[in-house]
């Protein structure tokens, strides 16, 4: 019975995710296809002959009805074939590969930082000292609304230009791939991406803990002689599911922020690739990278949901 519900929960989430991904790919495809201008002209340039352009249009499949083009594009994309990038002179898939790795590395570093910031600030915001609570409130307000690229530029100027403590760009020093080296390259951009998500998680943790403080759970645990650390573990376990949801949603903010932050720190990731392909008007590449970013976000949301089902049994049996 219980097993059945879990299967049903997971399969319904998977189905919903697939449907969302389909519509998202539709938006990506048609938004880019609606760009005024002839894609063939973009590739071949103004000097090309009409016959050449016509031939390329055939190769690109542009003579087919739009819906056929869309389904064929989607079909190929699912099998990992995103077409050919004219600006890079390579198949899109081979351009995306390394960029995806860099973006995931930066995103993961930022997520870990965000969790640390969230835990620290959430606890500070519910501390017994009024001064600390007030200060955290202010810091939270700043973190929540500071655009990531402004934070990135301020960090870059302060800690890479004025005080050259960290490298100003790239993922690693050439010929040095050690963890410490990569870490020093990723720290500043990761902080820039992690502040807002961290503050959002802190907010969620604060709400959970103060709701909990209004109940008798904590005093009763104290009365039973549990150590402060054990009590804190209990309090955080309850706060976890909403924090996971917030982190999932905030990954979207991070992915969006990476468009600018990767650019500022010259990190060759998906975000930098989007911006680059926009500048070069390489629409095949824009479509592929946008789809990939959107799909990463959808998958993260799905994972957050599933993780929550594991953490909070009430969710999977549908009592919440």
């Amino acid at each position: 019975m219980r097993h059945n519900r879990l299967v049903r929960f997971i399969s319904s989430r998977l189905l919903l995710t697939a449907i969302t991904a389909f519509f998202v790919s539709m938006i990506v495809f048609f938004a880019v296809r609606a760009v005024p201008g002839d894609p063939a002209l973009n590739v071949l340039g103004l000097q090309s002959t009409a016959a050449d352009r016509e031939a390329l249009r055939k190769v690109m499949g542009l003579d087919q009805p739009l819906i056929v083009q869309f389904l064929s594009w989607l079909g190929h994309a699912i099998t990992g074939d995103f077409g050919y990038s004219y600006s890079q002179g390579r198949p899109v898939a081979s351009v995306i590969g390394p960029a995806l790795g860099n973006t995931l590395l930066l995103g993961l570093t930022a997520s870990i930082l965000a969790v640390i910031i969230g835990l620290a600030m959430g606890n500070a915001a519910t501390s017994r000292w009024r001064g600390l609570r007030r200060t955290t409130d202010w810091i939270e307000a700043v973190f929540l609304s500071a655009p990531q690229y402004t934070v990135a530029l301020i960090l870059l100027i302060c800690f890479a230009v004025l005080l050259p403590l960290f490298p100003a760009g790239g993922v690693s020093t050439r010929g040095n791939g050690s963890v410490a080296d990569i870490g020093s390259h990723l720290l500043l951009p990761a902080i820039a991406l992690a502040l807002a998500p961290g503050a959002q998680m802190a907010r969620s943790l604060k709400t959970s803990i103060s709701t909990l403080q209004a109940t008798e759970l904590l005093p009763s645990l104290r009365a039973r002689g549990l150590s402060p650390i054990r009590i804190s573990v209990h309090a955080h376990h309850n706060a976890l599911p909403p924090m996971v949801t917030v982190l999932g949603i905030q990954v979207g903010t991070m992915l969006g922020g990476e468009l600018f932050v990767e650019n500022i720190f010259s990190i060759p990731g998906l975000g930098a690739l989007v911006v680059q392909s926009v500048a070069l008007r390489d629409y095949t590449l824009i479509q592929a990278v946008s789809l990939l970013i959107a799909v990463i976000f959808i998958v993260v949301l799905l994972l957050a949901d599933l993780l929550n089902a594991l953490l909070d049994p009430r969710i999977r049996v549908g009592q919440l």
Partner: protein
Amino acid sequence: MTSLASANQGAAVAIDRAPKVRFRSRPVLSRMPLRSQIALGVLLVLVIVVVLAPVLPLDNPLIGDLGSRLLPIGSVDHLLGTDSQGRDMVSRLVYATRTSLIAGLAPIIIATIIGLIIGTVAGLSGGLVNTILMRAIDVLFAFPGVLLSLLLAITLGVGLGTLILALTLVWIAPVARIAETEVARIRDLDYITAARSSGSSFPGILARQVTPVTLPAVLAYSTSLVGANVAIAGGLGFIGLGVPSPQPELGSVLQEMQTALYSDPLLSLEPVIVILALSMMFPLIGDGIRQAINGRGGDS
């Protein structure tokens, strides 16, 4: 007599503990926390400066003196220095703020109107209409906002008008969702049922019973969104998808000042600080409105 007075005093204290009652009578502005009032004041000053920009004694923001390029902060005649084309930074920043405020406010105002209509209609209708509308909204939520705005900005082409249109499309979904949530909270309350059973039309209920209740919360939310929108507009300008040059816009000014990143870091920091200030101001004001509505002095 004394006992009555002390009883009254007790009542006064009790009311004091329930701010809702005490605050109702005070104007919205004074119910806001101090930091929101400060933010509102700064915004007002900015708006006045920006509106009066053409009559203020500012240099031409488009024409520079090539002999005085990248002057540092505090130069004679150029208090905030000059950019790489010798244009006065004070003037550049004032005019850029003007463009950015338009690009920040206009989309949110339009999106709030459309989102409010979609959200309240979906919320009040319920059933199939609600499902269809809200599922469509959910699909838009599956996009990181920046990415969606970037795609739309590419599709619609560069320019202030198209930028506003693209950003409007981005913000309809979030506003609609908040409006729907607000309406869903009151949909089955007795006074709505009463209006329905007394023969009020759907638009009538929407206008008289629903909107007055949902509007304040939606407005507070929308005000906060202006900050995020200014940030995204600036980001798009930063990567060349905003308002085309030479018209100054904070994002493109930010991009141009990157040339001074190593030679004069503080100079390149100027537009960053203006964007930061603008993006933080609106959430503070929005928070203030929210707290004023909720009648609570504490955190939201």
